[in-house]
């Protein structure tokens, strides 16, 4: 008769009470694992969203993240193709890369001359095929819907705007944006407007040229005009054919978002020069990101590329919001862990204390027969551990069943900063520590909580205990 057998039998002695304790633990484990699985889903979902849209690593001129957007004349990568070639020539790095692509980040004013509206914009110049390839990244097999862009590599004058931007520029009707209505044209211009350098005048010459080309080859979309500051600081204007409105994750971005072909953005900011704001790298997986980041940084430090100095940032650095969101959920999870651990702790203490009280005479008899204090302590500790192991194991099995059913139910939600809804999933296996850690925690808490009643039992006076009956 081992301690374990004895503990199991003693727990069956008041089966209902033991079952209630185990049930409380199952509920605790279930709550922890479902929430933990949900956080995993957010963690990997958010990471997948960022990696698809922005990649894992960005190569910038040093200081670009801090000052680049206000000083396009100072912060750019000259001859970006040489940098890409340098990276691709390194076999170790190349085999880890899924996509390497240049981007141009720009800002300026977008105007719809026909509707007499204009709006500041934040723009992205991308190579559409590269961007769409990046959208297929699904290392964690989340099966999230890719947010592909409707641009093509060969039509360089096309662009996509945010829903909000479409509203601002009166593009709802031509772009057929659902739930969006264009404003009627105003007939009264303020007299002040006449004294200001007209945006309309600025783009007039470009507009005429574009209208000519539209007449020659009529194409889908509606034309707007973009005004931006060039690399030399002079204003530059270009027309852009907006072919689609694509909703962005937050309103601020949505109201000013324009995505266009890399060449078009390059023309607008850098004229014809072979420059880019950054080089984006999407890796095959995130696990080696830090190593690759360091290797590329070392490589760039070693080679002289027209005296340019670069820095390599990973997505947690150029997107600090990622860890803020994850840390918020982690804190919630931690809080939940503490609350559930306390519930398990007190439930187990209560159960085993009642068990000790019912078995005072037995404890006295065992001590009289020659069982040491440590023997009594061990017995009640084993009972706590059995409750812990049983509750935690059944809790994990229940969680797996519930998570499986939940994931098959096909529920959807729209995560913060996401434009479209995604499937609501509980990822139990994505983080092995979640399952193992929860199991260990519950067993530990139940075992530790048994020490208080176990100590109480072990320290009983033998004579008093025997008399108790």
């Amino acid at each position: 008769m081992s301690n374990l057998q004895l503990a199991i039998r003693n727990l069956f002695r008041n089966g209902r009470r033991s079952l209630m304790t185990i049930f409380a633990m199952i509920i605790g484990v279930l709550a922890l694992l479902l929430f933990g699985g949900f956080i995993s889903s957010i963690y990997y979902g958010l990471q997948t969203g960022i990696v698809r849209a922005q990649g894992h690593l960005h190569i910038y001129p040093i200081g670009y993240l801090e000052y680049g957007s206000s000083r396009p004349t100072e912060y750019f990568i000259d001859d970006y193709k040489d940098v890409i070639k340098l990276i691709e020539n390194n076999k170790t790095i190349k085999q880890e890369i899924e996509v390497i692509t240049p981007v141009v980040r720009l800002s300026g004013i977008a105007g719809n001359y026909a509707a007499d509206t204009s709006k500041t914009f934040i723009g992205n110049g991308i190579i559409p095929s590269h961007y769409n390839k990046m959208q297929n990244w699904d290392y964690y097999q989340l099966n999230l819907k890719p947010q592909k862009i409707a641009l093509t590599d060969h039509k360089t004058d096309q662009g996509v705007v945010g829903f909000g931007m479409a509203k601002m520029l009166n593009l709802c009707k031509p772009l057929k944006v659902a739930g969006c209505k264009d404003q009627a044209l105003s007939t009264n211009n303020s007299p002040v407007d006449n004294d200001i350098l007209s945006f309309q005048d600025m783009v007039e010459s470009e507009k005429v040229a574009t209208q000519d080309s539209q007449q020659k080859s009529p194409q889908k979309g509606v034309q707007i005009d973009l005004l931006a500051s060039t690399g030399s600081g002079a204003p530059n204007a270009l027309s852009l054919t907006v072919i689609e409105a694509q909703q962005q994750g937050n309103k601020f971005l949505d109201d000013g978002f324009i995505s266009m072909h890399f060449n078009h953005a390059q023309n607008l900011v850098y004229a014809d020069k072979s420059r880019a704001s950054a080089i984006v790298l999407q890796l095959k997986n995130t696990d080696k990101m830090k190593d690759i980041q360091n290797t590329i940084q070392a490589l760039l430090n070693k080679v002289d590329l027209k005296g340019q100095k670069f820095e390599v940032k990973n997505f947690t650095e150029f997107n600090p919001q990622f860890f803020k969101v994850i840390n918020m959920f982690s804190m919630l999870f931690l809080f939940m862990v503490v609350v559930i651990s306390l519930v398990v702790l007190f439930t187990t203490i209560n159960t085993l204390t009642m068990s000790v009280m019912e078995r005072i005479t037995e404890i006295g008899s065992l001590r009289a027969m020659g069982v040491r204090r440590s023997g009594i302590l061990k017995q009640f500790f084993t009972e706590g551990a059995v409750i812990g192991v049983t509750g935690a194991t059944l809790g994990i099995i229940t969680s797996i069943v519930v998570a499986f059913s939940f994931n098959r139910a096909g529920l959807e939600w729209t995560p913060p900063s996401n434009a479209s809804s995604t499937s609501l999933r509980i990822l139990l296996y994505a983080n092995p520590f979640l399952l193992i850690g929860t199991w260990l925690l519950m067993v530990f808490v139940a075992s530790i909580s048994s020490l208080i009643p176990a100590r109480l039992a072990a320290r009983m006076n033998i004579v008093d205990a025997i008399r108790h009956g």
Partner: protein
Amino acid sequence: MIADRKKITKEITTNTGKTKILAKLENITKTYQLGDVEVKALRGIDLQLKPQQFSFIVGSSGSGKTTLLNLLGCIDVPTSGQFRLLGKDIASLSDNQLADFRNHHIGYIFQNFNLMAVLSAFENVEYPLILQNIPRKERRERVADILSAVGLEKRQHHRPAHLSGGEQQRVAIARALAKRPELVLADEPTANLDSKTGAEIIKLMLEMQSRYKTSFIFSTHDSEVMRYASEVIEIKDGRIEKIATLNNTNVGVNHE
């Protein structure tokens, strides 16, 4: 920890040996504190017990017989006085040493049987042998032997709840004797049994005492069972009133 236990066990088991004096008590007192009231349960006991006796401690309720029995069983310690059992100065032993001493040398039979409810009769008897780390085969043989001796071989797989009072007390006797102790203590073992069963239990214990050459010490106030005793220690108000040695031929007394 295990090494420590083995060391203590070895020390305790080797130093007791065969002795002509089972227990020696000199000027033993025991005082309890019950709230503000000081209760003097024993007031200077001087007693010498020989081995392999069938001794009865008798006295009215509150006379101190259970307290004396508890001291002899090493589950309580005297307030003052000298107490040696099997040649050991009990006061010098630590809690763990006392537990090991009880484990190896003392068997207990309780008034309420105090069997472990979750164990069968067989397992209850086997339990003290597990504490002594006796190998499984030997353990099983010993248990089967003793259960057969107390007439419970056919009830060995029943749990206490399915045994009568008499049967439970037989299991308790078997449990106390299975580890072959030098001393078996029984605190009013027939108090919760009808007179017929009580008499049977006493006869059984007498038979066991004779077979295993063990010292039995009872506390009782049942004058009916005293006729089986080889020695009767009468206690009154915490003092020994009288010690009577009887010439009981049923008792396997050590005549060396």
